[in-house]
């Protein structure tokens, strides 16, 4: 009885506020747009009984998905989201790995402080962290002022509202997600392994490639997925830092819903986005499983 | 005043405190306890001894109420325990990890069980103080578990489980986390406390020395069965099987064929070797395979063949294990059979009688060895 109550309450909550809403999205993605409230058809009319249910199901179709496939705005957005997420993940890895490596090799009494410094931005508002780059990257921003003053450039660069700004924003905001798993993998590594490798004739650099990198592999993979997965659906960064030529699917969905008020298409966009996300999520789960087993 | 010997298990009138009746415990396909029937008496210090996975912990968890028997019944004072949940049993347990509540002080840990019974405050305080005194922890009462040493933690766990004055106290590897020196001191302390409180103790351990030291009876377990349950002396001197003989202490097992002669049997163990003779009550068929279990300290070692011993064999010293007060000699017979013999080191090492590769005579009396069927 006690056990039943314990299971039932969180389960009911998640069913009602996570699973059911998602089923509604799925259903609306199969409906058609209409000038009505709510702005789509068909709506389920239970008062019409069995006939109503039959009519409801027969009016559902895949038109919205066909539309997504034909209009190049959508499939280009998906491709470009994946591409941006992939490149940004690689960049975050290149920026994050040396930081994690430096932390793991720092003296013991420094490490809690360094750890706190990496986590601190994570607790600060995401929106503010993205916003802080707007002042830096704009045409009359601090970066251009600095470069002009140094005489590196003679006319201000346009960085804000370009893909470059989006990449900078992503690397900046997602850096802790990359650093922390790699750091925890590196920190667990036994320092005598490197000494053993050098003792057996490896150079420092070779020992790094042959010992350190393979042993931090699960951390690298975890960090990459922790960046890659959320970036695909990212909305704030492309909206604030990217221009009109930066296509990202999260932004498209938002605009489809709020600006065009086309709920069925927005829902279809969401469904396809989820389908795309399943692959990396499953891969991520497998990696986590493997590292858990390795721990035991 | 003659002291009566404490042997309730030999007294047909004595009522056992705990009775296992045909108890079987299965986890899926695995049989942890295999149809066991035995009794434990009041005031006993009963040890369950065996290698890990032999079922001793399962036995104890069934007594505590954390596991239910698949078949059979466990009676406590004649009452079936099955329907009584762990928190209603007059049984307390001292956990292997001690399971001290890290957020509570030593005092609060000991008072925990008493408070659950809703006893008045002054009664609780008096009982906790009594327990602190018993375990010599008075000055640590206000400390948290992580602020005291391992040995002190062990005593807190003991005090906490004894505080409710249970009919039966279960101790799961109580000294597993202590180092060797501390362990010995603690063993005597534990016996002392058991005697003072008169509580029945059931201890689970894989350390045979510990079981022999503390227990009034030792049950040697293997694969979910009790192989032999008896006093430490009987377990050592009269093992009922090769398993028990081998598990407890050092022993040489000599396999052979038995032939009846006089009050015992002649055992032929190798071609060209004289037969060995052993007196026994056991009945064996002629030519039956048997095993002679020989404790090393019962074997004499000499340079000349002794005239007055029944069993004499000649061999070569292969190895000498120097243990300080005594040495164990590993002597190989011509057929390859190894026999261990122990001798006290009454002289200094440099003047030792025997050395490696020496040919020596081993001898023992006709009652020194135990004849076993298997």
């Amino acid at each position, binding site marked *: 009885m*006690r056990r039943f109550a314990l299971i039932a309450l969180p389960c009911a909550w998640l069913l009602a506020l*996570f699973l059911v809403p998602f089923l509604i999205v799925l259903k609306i993605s199969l409906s058609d747009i209409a000038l009505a409230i709510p702005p789509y058809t068909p709506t389920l009319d239970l008062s019409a009984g069995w006939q109503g249910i039959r009519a409801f199901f027969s009016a559902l179709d895949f038109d919205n998905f066909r539309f997504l496939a034909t209009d190049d705005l959508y499939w280009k957005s998906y491709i470009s989201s994946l591409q941006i997420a992939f490149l940004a993940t690689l960049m975050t890895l290149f920026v994050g790995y040396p930081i994690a490596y*430096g932390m793991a*090799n720092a003296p013991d009494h420094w490490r*809690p402080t360094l750890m706190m410094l990496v986590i601190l931005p994570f607790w600060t508002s995401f929106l503010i962290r993205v916003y802080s780059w707007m002042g830096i990257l704009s045409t009359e921003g601090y970066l251009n002022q600095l470069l002009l003053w140094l005489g590196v450039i003679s006319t201000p660069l346009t960085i804000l509202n370009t893909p470059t700004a989006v990449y900078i924003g992503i690397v900046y905001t997602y850096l802790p997600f990359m650093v922390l798993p790699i750091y925890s993998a590196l920190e667990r590594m036994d*320092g005598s392994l490197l000494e053993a490798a050098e003792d057996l004739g490896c150079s420092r650099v070779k020992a790094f490639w042959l010992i350190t990198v393979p042993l931090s592999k699960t951390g690298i993979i975890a960090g990459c997925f922790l960046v890659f997965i959320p970036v695909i659906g990212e*909305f704030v960064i492309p909206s604030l830092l990217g221009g009109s030529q930066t296509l990202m699917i999260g932004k498209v969905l938002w605009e489809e819903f709020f600006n065009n008020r086309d709920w069925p298409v927005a829902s279809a966009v969401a469904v396809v986005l989820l389908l795309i996300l399943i692959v990396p999520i499953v891969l991520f789960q497998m990696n986590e499983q493997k590292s858990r087993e390795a721990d035991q | 005043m003659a002291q009566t010997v404490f042997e309730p298990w030999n007294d047909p009138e004595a009522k056992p405190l705990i009775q296992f009746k045909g108890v079987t415990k299965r986890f899926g396909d695995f049989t942890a306890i295999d149809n066991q029937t035995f009794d434990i008496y009041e005031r006993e210090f009963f040890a369950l001894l065996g290698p890990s996975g032999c079922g001793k912990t399962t036995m104890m968890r069934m007594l505590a109420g954390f596991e239910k028997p698949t078949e059979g019944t466990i009676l406590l004072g004649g009452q079936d325990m099955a329907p009584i949940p762990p928190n209603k049993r007059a049984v307390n347990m001292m956990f292997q990890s001690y399971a001290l509540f890290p957020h509570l002080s030593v005092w609060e840990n000991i008072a925990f069980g008493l408070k659950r019974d809703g006893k008045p405050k002054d009664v609780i305080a008096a009982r906790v103080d009594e327990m602190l005194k018993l375990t010599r922890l008075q000055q640590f009462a206000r400390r948290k578990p992580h602020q005291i*040493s391992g040995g002190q933690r062990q005593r807190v766990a003991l005090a906490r489980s004894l505080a409710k004055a249970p009919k039966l106290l279960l101790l799961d590897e109580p000294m597993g986390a202590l180092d060797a020196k501390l362990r010995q001191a603690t063993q005597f302390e534990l016996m002392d406390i058991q005697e003072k409180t008169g509580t029945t103790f059931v201890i689970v351990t894989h350390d045979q020395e510990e079981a022999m030291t503390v227990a009034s009876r030792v049950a040697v377990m293997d694969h979910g069965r009790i192989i032999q349950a008896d006093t430490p002396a009987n377990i050592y001197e009269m093992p009922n099987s090769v398993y028990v003989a081998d598990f407890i202490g050092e022993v040489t097992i000599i396999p052979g064929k038995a032939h009846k002669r006089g009050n015992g049997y002649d055992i032929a163990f190798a071609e060209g070797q004289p037969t060995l003779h052993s007196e026994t009550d056991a009945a064996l068929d002629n030519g039956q395979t048997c095993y002679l279990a020989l404790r090393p300290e019962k074997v004499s070692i000499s340079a000349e063949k002794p005239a007055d011993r029944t069993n004499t064999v000649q061999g070569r010293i292969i190895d000498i294990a120097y243990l300080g007060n005594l040495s164990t000699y590993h002597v190989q017979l011509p057929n390859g059979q190894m026999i261990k013999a122990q001798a006290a080191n009454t002289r200094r090492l440099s003047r030792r009688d025997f050395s490696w590769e020496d040919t020596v005579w081993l001898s023992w009396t006709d009652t020194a060895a135990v004849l076993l069927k298997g």
Partner: protein
Amino acid sequence: MRRLTWFNTTSLTLGFAFLYLPMIILIVYSFNESKLVTVWAGFSTKWYGTLVQNQAFLDAAWVTLKVALASSTIATILGTMAALVLVRAGRFYGRTLFSGMIYAPLVMPEVITGLSLLLLFIGIGLDRGIFTIILAHTTFSMCFVSVVVSSRLVTFDRSLEEAALDLGCSHFDAFRLVTLPIIAPAVISGWLLAFTLSLDDLVIASFTAGPSATTLPIKIWSSIRLGVSPEINALSTIMIGIVAVGVITASLITKRASLRQQADERAAVHA
């Protein structure tokens, strides 16, 4: 031995400069006299003054705080229950679905969570406002809480609970008197995480908030879309300051606690 080579020193310096410079610039320029944010015109705190008088921001902050307090508290209760189910309940019908529903919201893009909840609220005719934001925030943050708490529960020594039962506790008392006090740090960090996530959230709140309730991130969003403003710089500085004080205090407390524990353990060895 661990030592700082020039490579490690450089990478740490550059890395942390990258992480902190943008925020430092933001803080410095919040004290800029000029309305032109990128041109320094002398020190002034006037933007803090105008911020305090901006009723819309104050209202939004109040709404955000209420939402965060309510949703993080409910999420902590539900999330802890869910963690107990995940770690302790063993097998039951629908377990896979249950753990799926716990983990899915962690990786679900916010736009989808927001969209689906909005469609639900419209579908059942629930008026959007503070209440719907609380429901939405509770739903996704309870999953984060349950992950934090269940990772603590996995390493929890079950024999502590058995000891409590053995000493006469009911199951509920064993949880209340033994388990909960011991896992409390994880529950508290779960609550803090839920609280921060709620404070921080723009996307889900934008979908589920009605015209009657505007949260601070929504307010900030609508003003920064037009560009950088000194008032927002001032607001950001205040928010960064609060978080920094909180995180640094927390880390000092845990550091001191762990130092004390180490000292205690050393003392115990010699006792």
